[in-house]
């Protein structure tokens, strides 16, 4: 059975590797385009958040390309993500798309469903635990190198003179990474990228502005829906910092027993402002903004889909943090009506504001 899965940033590379190594055929959904938006908007409920609409369209496009089963994560609330799959399945069923839903719910919620999905995914390999282990190790290594490369790219992009060349290098890296299946060569691929990026001519600039991106994970990682915010900022000569990433998500959610420090950090940083968990990444948004405020980041951009409940709670509290830390915060609420030009204009204005603020602060410090 050919598998597909929802798209989120570069997650398709490790996930495709994982399933292929487990012996499945994979049909990854095509990148997000205008058509993806149109399909999602047409068939999804009006007030569902953008991630719901885009992942729904992902499935449609993948099924059109021959996918027969959808593998996705569930959840136990209160964020809507946990109930996406059921409603999407129903919508697609009514539209006449037939597919198998393999839902990876957290244990405890729908354990039977989880076991069924796992039995299907691992099925043939259960006699060969070594193969499963190798597949997971390779996919995880890829995810780690992808995140590292992304971090490097975000740091160097504002500093290099030939931004186009840097972008080409990064794209090439992604292609090679997707194709490479030798665990021991992954590091070489990464070093090659680092080497090439470091060798590009640098701009003669002073301290580069740093902006931290916080908010809802899907909207941050999937550049197709956030109008390439990170890239726009990078092109404007702004370094983008962020703590959410694929590996961070896996560590903080799937392996939270092994990595309790993520949760502890979030709680410690956010508790003076937000005293409870609010689902999704609401608490992380507050915690990371506090972190940005204390670590001399120049500004914070919060990205959230329209009607996102946890992020709205965070957005209500962010003005306090902004005042407390003298930290400009821009909330980008995105939905299918947002346009690239609108987002770019707002980011440009925000960066202008940050530049002026820094000049003023530096002048004040000089006096």
């Amino acid at each position, binding site marked *: 059975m050919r598998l597909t899965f929802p798209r989120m940033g570069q997650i398709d590379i490790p996930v495709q590797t994982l399933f292929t190594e487990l012996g499945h055929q994979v049909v990854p959904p095509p990148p997000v385009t205008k058509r993806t938006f149109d399909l999602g908007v047409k068939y999804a409920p009006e*007030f569902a958040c953008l991630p719901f609409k885009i992942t729904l369209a992902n499935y449609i496009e993948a099924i059109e390309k021959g996918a027969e089963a959808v593998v996705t994560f569930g959840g136990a609330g*209160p964020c809507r993500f946990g109930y996406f799959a*059921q409603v999407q399945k129903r919508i697609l069923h009514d539209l006449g798309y037939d597919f198998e839903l393999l839902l990876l719910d957290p244990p405890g919620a729908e354990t039977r469903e989880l076991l069924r999905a796992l039995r299907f995914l691992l099925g043939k390999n259960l006699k060969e635990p070594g193969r499963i282990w190798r597949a997971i190790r390779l996919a995880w290594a890829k995810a780690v190198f992808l995140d590292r490369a992304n971090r490097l790219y975000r740091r160097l992009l504002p500093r290099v003179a030939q931004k186009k060349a840097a972008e080409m290098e990064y794209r090439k890296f992604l292609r090679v990474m997707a194709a490479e299946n030798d665990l021991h060569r992954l590091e070489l691929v990464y070093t090659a990228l680092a080497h090439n990026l470091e060798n590009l001519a640098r701009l003669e600039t002073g301290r580069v502005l740093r902006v931290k991106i916080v908010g809802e994970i899907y909207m941050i990682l999937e550049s197709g829906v956030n109008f390439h915010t990170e890239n726009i900022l990078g092109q404007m000569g702004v370094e983008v910092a962020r703590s959410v990433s694929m590996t961070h998500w896996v560590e903080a959610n799937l392996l939270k027993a092994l990595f309790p420090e993520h949760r502890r950090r979030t709680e410690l940083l956010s508790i003076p402002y937000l005293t409870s968990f609010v689902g999704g990444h609401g608490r992380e948004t507050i915690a990371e903004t506090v972190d940005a405020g204390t670590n001399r980041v120049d500004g914070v951009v919060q990205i959230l889909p329209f009607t996102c409940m946890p992020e709205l709670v965070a957005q209500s509290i962010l003005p306090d943090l902004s005042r407390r830390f003298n930290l400009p915060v821009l909330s980008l609420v995105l939905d299918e009506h947002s346009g690239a030009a609108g987002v770019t204009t707002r980011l440009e204005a925000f960066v202008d504001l940050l530049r002026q603020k820094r000049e003023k602060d530096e002048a004040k410090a000089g006096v």
Partner: protein
Amino acid sequence: MKVGIPRALLYYWYGPAWKAFLSAAGLEPVVSPPTNKAIMTAGLKAAVDEICLPVKVFIGHCLELQKNCDAVLVPRLTSVARKEYTCPKFMGLPDMIRRLLPRTPVIIWESAGSFLPERIWTPQGSGMIFEREFLTLAGRDEVVHGDANGNNHGVIRGDGVIRRRGVVRWSGRMKKPLAAARKAHAVYTGLLRRGYLPEEAMALFDGQQGRPAGLRQRTNPQTASQDLPDAAGRVNPERHREKLDRVNPEKHGEKPDRVDTLGHRAKPGRVIGLVGHPYCLYDSFVNTGIIRFLQEEGCRLLTPEMLPEDEIATALKGLPKAIYWTMGRVALGASRLFRTHACGQAGVDGLIHVAAFACGPEALIGEVIKRECSREIPYLQIYLDEHTGEAGLHTRLEAFLDLAGGKERAGCV
């Protein structure tokens, strides 16, 4: 000391319990006035633009209460049933409110797993004050964490509750207010199950003689007291049966005396099921008086609050995944019951789903309800926001009632 209770969000489920709790703790509960233009405008100004209208209204009520109260009770109902949540916004509510009320302390009623509080506390500045201080607020000065014989019941944690083997135990002083809350809730829910709308049930509960404006006399004052459940929260089964029969008069064989829930003559037949979150259904300012409008049109109304919990659970059996939002689960279960049978009634003539614009859970659950209802019964989805106008909404309702009535004329029901 006056403690304000905002008449918004889940006040329509738990208001009487909160009032009873505060009174038993020696505080004076003050409920904010019904939503009005000024309250809504204040809320709109203070809240984030994109948040849903009910939360904006809630903020408005809190701002209104701070004018004449010494503290405001803000619930953090993380969940009111096991393995379920209310809404992420409810979880962040106290933190959203306390930054808007710089001078008035916020008392947080924090629940998880049941509406009864796991702890009650109030954040002040960076520090937090807990049960001890809450009781001080109530005019008492000490907290006893032991029984009458002087035995210590366990370790006192920072949050003022004693936990032993995972069970939350309150110190002795808190037991009376909690019992009062539990009892008030049982009585009030009993009234709702019996078919009273929250406004009527609260009036009855408070023993008020005067009916709230806009609601007509619907029960005989002599028999109304029999409707009240007894001390244990049990309702009189005789009366209950009678009440159900009133909804389903055909059972008596004789020509039914069609009397709707309001007590005035209805055009025969139109039973309308209303589903949605309680604060959308019962805040008549926010929904421009949908309930009163339908009643005046002669419809008999069924709302989710009239259904017993176990019937809703039965109706939802076989769902591929349990819904983890309490209000969403109740709405879907109620919509299924209304379609087939409820309160002895063989299906409603039309179903109206009232939701707030940009409501997160309703976006998904509403879609499921819509898909289940389509091609079965007339179904209307109403989204409320601050721009909802009475004329526009009522026109839609009238058109819908024509549709629902037409179905009956065609002999489908």
